[in-house]
């Protein structure tokens, strides 16, 4: 199986400081991988590095092969061809992930139209509008026809996150990176979004890189996890193995914290 994404010995430096060190990670087609780590461990930077979008001043070393193409050092033109078709990202903060001045429908229409044009079958007018509604329906948004005309501030956080997912889906990526898509949401909404991602990934044969800091949440969504700490991958393996027999102290700590939490909840119920 040739990997869709193959990160090898990735390091990211900023002014002499190492933010990511020797990270290796591979994701095959339709595979689901979780990336877990505390705040500041370099999860978002990894996601940005994969699409060649590291902020200015952050230098990547090593190799990132996406759909068989090298990302590090690639020209903007080549990267633009990869972005969207090979990978799309759903961001952490649903409030800033949408343009405040654009209706939901138009925001979804933009990547949709671009993807269609790229595929040589341009979408316009009512065909585009109905494709937008299909997508909004696909991410289980209620009353898509009305929501399409709403501005981001007029819908809920969970709905915004669904719109952001719809925008990512509009690109029809082979790999969807979800960077803590549920962190800003309440527990019920969180579960719904997880289910949604699960369903969409299988329906559309998408691979998933699910980023999060909550072991329990991530474990429920993926087959394999990589645990990161201060820019270093401290552990990786199938979810069951890592949960049953964590080999690194940090992972043990994460697990214990999750258990304490469960116990506390169990006592209250």
């Amino acid at each position, binding site marked *: 199986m040739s990997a869709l994404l193959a990160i090898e010995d990735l390091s990211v430096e900023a002014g002499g400081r190492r933010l990511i060190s020797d990270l290796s990670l591979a994701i095959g087609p339709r595979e689901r991988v979780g990336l877990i780590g505390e705040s500041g461990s370099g999860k978002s930077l990894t996601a*940005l590095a994969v*699409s060649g*979008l590291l902020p*200015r*001043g952050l230098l990547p070393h090593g190799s990132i092969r996406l759909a068989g193409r090298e990302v590090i050092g690639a020209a903007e033109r080549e990267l*633009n*061809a*990869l*972005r*969207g*078709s090979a*990978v*799309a*990202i759903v*961001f*952490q*903060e649903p409030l*800033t*992930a*949408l*343009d*405040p*001045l*654009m209706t939901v429908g138009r*925001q979804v229409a*933009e*990547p949709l139209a*671009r*993807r269609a044009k*790229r595929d040589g079958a341009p979408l316009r007018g009512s065909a585009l509008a109905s494709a937008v509604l299909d997508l909004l329906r696909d991410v289980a948004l209620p009353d898509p026809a009305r929501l399409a005309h709403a*501005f981001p*501030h007029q819908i809920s956080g969970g709905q915004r996150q669904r719109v*952001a997912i719809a*925008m*990512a889906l*509009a*690109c029809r990526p082979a790999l969807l990176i979800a960077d803590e898509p549920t962190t800003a949401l309440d527990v019920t909404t969180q579960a719904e979004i997880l289910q949604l991602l699960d369903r969409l990934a299988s329906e559309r044969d998408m691979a998933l890189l699910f980023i999060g800091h909550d072991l329990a949440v991530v474990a429920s969504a993926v087959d394999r996890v990589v645990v990161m700490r201060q820019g270093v991958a401290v552990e990786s393996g199938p979810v069951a193995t890592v949960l049953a027999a964590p080999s690194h102290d940090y992972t043990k700590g994460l697990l214990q914290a999750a258990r304490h939490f469960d116990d506390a909840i169990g006592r209250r119920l």
Partner: protein
Amino acid sequence: MTIPADTAILSRKARSWTLVAGLALVGLHLVVALLTLVWTPFDPTELAGRRLEAPSLLHLAGTDRLGRDLLTQIMIGSRIALTVGTAAVAIGAVLGTTLGLLAAFASNWLDDALAAALDILIAFPTLLIAMLVVAASDGANLSTAILALGLGLSPIVARLARILAKRVLLMDYITAARTSGTSWPAIVRIHVLPNIWPGLSVNLALQFGLAVIAEASLSYLGLGAPPPNASWGRLLQEAQGTVFSAPIGAITPGIALVSLVIGINLLADGLRERNDPARSER
């Protein structure tokens, strides 16, 4: 946000009042300006009465020191002010926004250099830059005045556009657009320009007011449109010698100038509030 309902309604009323007042003032000047293209009470160069006549039914704003009708000249002044303001702001906006966006996108050292250059330029008053431009060109006329003012206010627009664009570029929706393969020109068109516009337009309205005033100053200094163009600045200058014997000659162009500047600012304020989707229905 928990604004009590009654204040929210009040401020909404206040906003619509702003818009209506702005529209009325600017509309009045616009109508007058258009009217002068086809009709004025008198010919602006015609010696229609005695010198320095007080306002009368025939000459509603009196006459100047040569006996020309002042209302005619003030009306033509509206046209000149609107033309100069619009054209100068358009030049300044296009030039300034382009420069500001370039700086926002540029690599660190180029951005620093551009920002420093803009700060230096801004340290010179717009009027001074405009005077230098007029002095460097071969004669004072309306188009050199417009060009000079446009150039003069472009650094102010550029600095603001740069700051606003930099803030927008940090937003996740820009990164999201880039991850879906949107090119930079498309991102500028779709996301950056619309999102800097609300902040920029308020400033442009302010610049419009300043441009109208600066044009009056240029004309006052004899660097604006030459006679018989009746710019308000030139009317003020001509009324200067007779300000004690016939103050009306200085007061009316002053009122015209102030009413247009205030009108533009009210209009800009009202429009901004109305176009902000997050505020319009609160």
